[in-house]
């Protein structure tokens, strides 16, 4: 199932939370929408689900215009931030709810829900109420509930939002496996770049209601194109070109593309050495006062002067789109 958004705007009180946005997601693709909070990601999901009316534009699912279709007739799955489990229903009836809505009788729905819960490692939870579950258990119940009616578009809104790190990595892998096996088109919303890169086949970065960059994780990482995207996805050396002798308003250079070399063209002062992931990240200051990070197998003393060379092929020019 493919998705096509054509100049979609969504108004929230006086502002456009989504502003004239175009987006195409291919059938079966794992697509991640990332951006800072308030950038309009959740609103966009709600609009695709039919929960927010569009100010302008159209939403097409599988080539069919669904812009005016109410949410219950779109057959899309949306897993809500903080899950929105039905507090008055048991776990099994939460999961069975969507099955009942596609016409299954109560007993069949419960049998299937129970089987799905077992698959998700939630044996024995059938009769529990949501308020007796842990955060991780709720997350899995919400995921199973979303997937139970087998929607061909699965939308996940910050699905790992409030969980602890170990749990997040586990559940992320699980979710990726499940949606890949189902072959469902998946639209995953997060503000966390690690999650985004780990999950996405393709991703888009949103800012103030617009998409500012789209591509595979590799493409976006390799060439962020703007300072906002570069900083948001975690590039550590976003500098003015002048800092390392480039004729560009802004550039980004990977720490690995900087090498210590006594003959090097750039003079630096070592500020500090930080141990991370088995090696050292050296924070250094260049002549114009900007700071950059350089990979090193050994720590270097603060205050030392040194020189580096730049692998110019690894440098990417950036358009400045933030102050």
């Amino acid at each position, binding site marked *: 199932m493919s998705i096509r958004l054509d100049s979609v705007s969504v108004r929230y009180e006086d502002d456009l939370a989504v502003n004239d946005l175009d987006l195409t997601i291919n059938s079966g693709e794992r697509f991640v929408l990332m951006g800072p909070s308030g950038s309009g990601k959740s609103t966009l999901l709600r609009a695709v689900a039919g929960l927010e009316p569009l100010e302008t534009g159209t939403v097409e699912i599988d080539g069919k215009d669904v812009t005016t279709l109410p949410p219950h007739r*779109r057959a899309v799955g949306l897993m809500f931030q903080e899950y*929105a489990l039905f507090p008055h229903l048991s776990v099994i009836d939460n999961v069975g709810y969507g099955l009942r809505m596609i016409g299954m009788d109560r007993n069949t729905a419960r049998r299937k829900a129970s089987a799905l819960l077992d698959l998700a490692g939630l044996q024995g939870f059938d009769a529990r109420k949501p308020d007796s579950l842990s955060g991780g258990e709720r997350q899995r119940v919400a995921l199973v509930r979303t997937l139970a009616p087998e929607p061909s578009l699965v939308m996940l809104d910050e699905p790992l939002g409030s969980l602890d790190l170990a749990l997040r990595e586990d559940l992320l892998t699980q979710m990726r496996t499940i949606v890949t096996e189902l072959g469902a088109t998946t639209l995953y919303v997060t503000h966390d770049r690690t999650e985004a890169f780990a999950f996405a086949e393709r991703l888009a970065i949103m800012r103030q209601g617009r998409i500012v960059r789209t591509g595979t994780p590799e493409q976006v990482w390799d060439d962020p194109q703007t300072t906002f995207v570069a900083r948001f996805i975690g590039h550590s050396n976003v500098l003015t070109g002048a800092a390392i002798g480039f004729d560009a308003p802004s550039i980004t250079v990977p720490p690995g593309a900087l090498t210590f070399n006594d003959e090097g063209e750039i003079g630096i002062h070592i500020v500090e050495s930080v141990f991370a992931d088995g090696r050292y990240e050296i924070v250094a200051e260049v002549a114009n006062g900007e700071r950059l990070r350089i990979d090193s197998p050994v720590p270097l003393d603060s205050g030392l002067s040194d020189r580096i060379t730049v692998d110019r092929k690894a440098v990417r020019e950036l358009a400045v789109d933030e102050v």
Partner: protein
Amino acid sequence: MDPRVDSNSTLLTASPVGRIGLGVIIAVPSLFLLYFFAYPVASITIRGLTTDGSFSLAVVGDVMTDPVLLAAARFTVIQALISTIVTVLVAFPAAWAFARFDFPAKRALRAATLVPFVLPTLVVGSAFLTVAGPNGAIGTDLTGTLFLIVVAHAFYNYAIVVRGVGAYWERIDPRTEDAARTLGASSFTTFRTITLPLLRPVIASTSALVFLFSFTSFGVVLLLGDLKHTTIEVEIWRQTTAFLRLDVASTLAVLQLIGVGVILAGYGWFQRSTAVQFEHATAPTRLPRKGKERIAVTLALTSMLVILGTPLLLLVIRSFTNPAGGAGIANYQNLIRLPEITAAFVNPVDAIRNSFTVAFMTLAIALVIGGLAAAALTYASRRVARGFDLFVMLPLGTSAVTIGFGFLVALSWPIDLRTSLILIPIAHTLVAIPFVVRTTTPALGSIRHNLREAAAVLGASPWRTWWTIDLKIVTPAIIVAAAFAFAISMGEFGATSFITRPSFPTIPIAIFKLLSKPGAAPFGAAIALSVILMVITGVSMFVIDTIGTRASNEL
């Protein structure tokens, strides 16, 4: 294991009060209710059921076989049932609009819903008579019909449903409904399978209140039923004043109390069995969207304004209709010039001052006693809470007349309080306590225990935790409770009429005295004073609402 039992026991051991504190919290409201409610009611009962100092159940037999009284009992239940269903249905759309949306003048409209609730029954009865009484505006005399009684009860109790259901609805996360929609439920199915079940506890509790008010309604049935239909409450009054059969009246009062006890017990059980904990204090509200949503909200609010506004509008118009005919302010001038017109002069300015004094005293006493009772219900074990709940709710089922009469009969021991004016706010407090408890208990019970633990870990002592967490979270509920207590006191008539002195009239007493005088001038003055009471109450509600909201924002 049922997780609720578990969380409840944790709640007890970790409640901010401890065993001794819990004892005090239960003891204070208990003693208050024992002395000011149970003791007077028991005195009436004993006085009625003894003949020449010895016990006699013959009266009970007489009552149970009297066809007139049986018909009254049957009518009491039927009209209460129909009134409840109609009130809930009619007020439900407005509750939805208040819970989910922002719209212009929302605060003022919310305050306005309370106005009918606080008007003296006799005045609202008169207003309805101007619509559908003999020579009424619609041209058909509907007095003595079930229809008119039901409409008047719906008018009266509208606020209970709008405020009660609305406040609870605000706490339901709208995303729960959104989730149902994306899982394939139509908006109607979502309402039927998600919204309605989630609202069930509050629909049950507000229905119980409306049912009880209709069940024990006095002024409306007396005036609009025209004695063609009577209820148990009216019969208690008639047996007392017309036939001087205190024994029969007492027996009826006891039977009514038993009925109320059964209703409240069943309702309490139902409420506990379906209570759901919410994570959010309140869900965000927003402007309604163009199209269907805006039309629905507009319709809900318009229906509210028509239902609540029409009788009040007629009341106002009538107040500006001069006794001699034509429009003017003669009725208001008569409030000051009244000694020239009637001997039953009461100074309206005095009455207004007295009513304010009493209302503020009631507010203070009712919040302390009712707040402690709500805390007791929340922190005590389930078994204790269940019994205590019934005890606290019982004054609701007791007519105000019974309470006032009971004060006069009983409160000469151990010291003679019968001439003390403090009895007026105390009587009002008895009427208000069930409201205070009903509005604050669900809020207290909804506080997740981990919030208290979080506060404790952040270094808050148990009392500071209570002050900064529990109290702050229930503040909106306390504001609603305070508004109710104040409003009830302003409009209370039945009990006050038994215990006040002629030198200390309240506004409703003054209105009643004017109404009981023959002639167009006193009636017009009564209507004018009713309008003044309506304005005072509306403004008071608005002020309490505003101050309360600000206070709850300052931690």
